[in-house]
């Protein structure tokens, strides 16, 4: 192939005046510099063909991306401020709104921070129920992201399949918690209500079904030559870069870092179950996707173990005795919590006040590490400050950096491969 020579044409283009009024977070003079040189500044979004809204300001040379500057915040709703003005218990629905498909993981992190502050020991059964539902949400979120990835790739079948399977996850949440998506099921000290055996049977069957159908989905979409061609070797990040940009979750594991909060700092029932941390080495878009596809299988195995364990346990005792404020048990008897929060909700949680201090918990949400910091002053019954760092917000930097050197046409594929969900990132 002969060497191609570059010619720059001095085209007298003026950046449009409206750019000023958009107040973009770009270095001053970016558009002028670009139009004077050989580059173009492209604006992608906030309305674009996929899910969720953010603006990407892309500097391209030819059709190779030189730099991407994010303009997030189109779904910023001020969760952190609102949390300061609500009771601790009222914040549970609030903190799960950023990523409602992943609701149990999101409320779990927040609730565990409260439990850490008040030194609450969660009953065994509640622990297993929480773990089980957290994994169901993880499956649901991974399917959601797979669906959105296919929308980005223009693959309609790949959208229909995972969403049909997600329907089962919604059904499980509905049977357990009463809502298809926003469960608000985890409460300090346990869960809201018990899961009976017929529901457990249903969960077992649903996961078996998902397991079988996920195999078909792999054949149709995951190992589809088109998918592979669009994702393989696109936007790869090395292990070193991934660490430098502070990427989280499955995207970090796709770069070869074996970090999963469930394994490094196990919470709830995770240390009593057997499962593997899925790691890949390539760090490209395809392995970012594959890691999540394989995690679905691990989650299914975790759920099945939980179902088995729950069936062997006696029913009831799902809210900790520590918070139920029960008197000391009789001698020789174990302190027993409540079987349901029904009727006791306001008594238990209405006046919740945490001791003064700072409490930080890490949770492995579907898209990565989720951090909650509650700062309490010891007197108010609302958090003095709640810091929420969502996975999306953490890997945004890596997402932007990984795009450097890609083609413009790959931008959507990379967006999908990160499963970037703006409400989650912006909070």
């Amino acid at each position, binding site marked *: 192939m002969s060497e191609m020579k570059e010619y720059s044409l001095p085209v007298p283009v003026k950046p449009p005046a409206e750019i000023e009024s958009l107040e973009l977070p770009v270095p001053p003079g970016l558009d002028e510099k670009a139009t004077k040189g050989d580059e173009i500044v492209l604006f992608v979004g906030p309305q*674009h063909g996929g899910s969720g809204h953010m603006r990407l300001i892309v500097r391209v040379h030819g059709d190779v991306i030189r730099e991407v500057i994010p303009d997030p915040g189109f779904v910023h709703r001020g969760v952190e401020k609102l949390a300061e003005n609500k009771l601790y218990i009222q914040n549970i629905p609030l903190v799960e709104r950023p990523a409602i498909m992943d609701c149990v993981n999101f409320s779990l992190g927040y609730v565990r921070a409260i439990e850490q502050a008040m030194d609450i020991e969660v009953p065994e059964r509640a622990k297993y129920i929480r773990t089980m539902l957290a994994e169901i949400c993880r499956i649901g979120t991974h399917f959601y992201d797979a669906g959105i990835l296919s929308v980005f790739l223009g693959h309609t079948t790949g959208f229909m399949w995972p969403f049909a399977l997600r329907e089962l996850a919604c059904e499980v949440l509905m049977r357990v918690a009463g809502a298809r998506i926003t469960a608000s099921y985890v409460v300090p000290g346990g869960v809201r209500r018990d899961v009976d055996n017929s529901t457990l049977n249903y969960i077992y069957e649903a996961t078996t079904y998902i397991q079988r159908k996920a195999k078909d989905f792999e054949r149709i979409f995951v190992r589809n030559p088109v998918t592979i061609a669009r994702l393989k070797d696109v936007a790869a990040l090395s292990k070193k870069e991934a660490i430098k*940009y502070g990427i989280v979750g499955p995207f970090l594991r796709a770069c070869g870092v074996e970090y999963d909060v469930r394994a490094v700092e196990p919470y709830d029932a995770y240390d009593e179950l057997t499962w593997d941390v899925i790691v890949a080495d390539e760090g490209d878009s395809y392995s970012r996707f594959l890691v999540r596809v394989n995690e679905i299988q691990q989650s299914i195995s975790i759920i099945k173990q939980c179902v088995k364990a729950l069936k062997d346990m006696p029913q009831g005792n799902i809210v900790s005795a520590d918070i139920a404020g029960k008197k000391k048990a009789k001698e020789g008897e174990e302190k027993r919590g409540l079987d349901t929060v029904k009727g006791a909700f306001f008594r238990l949680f209405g006046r919740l006040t945490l001791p003064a201090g700072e409490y930080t918990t890490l949770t492995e949400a579907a898209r990565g590490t989720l951090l909650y910091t509650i700062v309490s002053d010891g007197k108010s019954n609302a958090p003095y400050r709640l810091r929420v760092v969502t996975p999306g917000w953490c890997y945004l930097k890596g997402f932007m950096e990984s795009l450097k050197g890609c083609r413009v046409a790959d931008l959507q594929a990379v967006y999908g491969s990160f499963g970037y969900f703006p409400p989650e990132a912006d909070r």
Partner: protein
Amino acid sequence: MKDVNAENIEFLGSGALAPVKKWGAKWSLWAVHLVTSCCGVELAHAYASGYDAERWGTLNFGMMRQTNLIIVEGTITKKMARALRITWEQMPDPKFVILIGACGIEGGLFWNSYHITRPWKIVPVDYFVPGCPPTPEGLISAVRALQKKIERGEARTTVDFKEADLAKILGTEAGKERKPPKPPLKIAEKPEIKIEPKEVDWEFGNQLVDKLRGKIPYAEVFTTNVNRIYIKTNAKFYKKVAKALESEGFDHVKSINVIDVLHENKFIVECSVSSYSVKELMPVIVTFAAEIDRNNPRIPSLTDIWLSADYQEREMHDFFGVWFEGNPNMGQKFLIAPEVETPLRKDFKLEEPSYVLEESK
């Protein structure tokens, strides 16, 4: 103001071609991809194989130029409002708007947030669907209602609520004074923010604390819980502590946090770091904090040590107005709309809930 909704319907019902126009519009309500918030999850379900809204001739499609329906999913933030309006304006006539989710109606869970607008003030809405999020059936029934509206040429509400006699319920007719219930929220007047050492049974941590104490004698190092170490320092040593931690193997920032202590006129800037490359340090979070003056909040940026601090510093700059010296992007709004100033400071007050039932304003 013109009634755009009525005009659209009128247009469809006029002329000799009216039946064709109506039929065409009714069965091709294509919604633009404008997944504005979390309600979008249920929208996706409605259009996926479970509910298959395409049966009724409605389809989610990429570009506004080729579509005639906006389904506003929940919250519209101040930043998004403009995009919503532009999208709507670029759509060809006749066009329709369905608004789903409690957030879109009166703000829902986020009603008093500093970053929320009411979308019905921005675009003319045809149908509202309440719920948080509404079920896919709810959305589909709104599409069906819209189709019926096109067909009939007039709008009908799908639910009739009984009018309540407020005066009777509230007992205002007798001239009685009403006592609102006490709000359950109690916020301390002069809150004390103290983070204190806690002895924990954590051998590795205690060793690490000793090691750090040797390395940074000018700062206070202690454990606050298992896997949590806290370092109190000041703005002068803030960066030095960061460098010391980096050489220990802490390689990324987990969170940057600012706590506003209004009555003591100070900010506490906290940075939490952890490690991906050293296995023993993986579960450990070290938080180092510095107190700075609230009137001149400046602190060195850590972006040259940990690049992962960048966006969070810019976020904190938006929220509190803290200036991170050395971060090249200071002074620009990043996450929030330009018109909102330092919303997370404690003196930025949100509207408070009212515990009295009032006649709607």
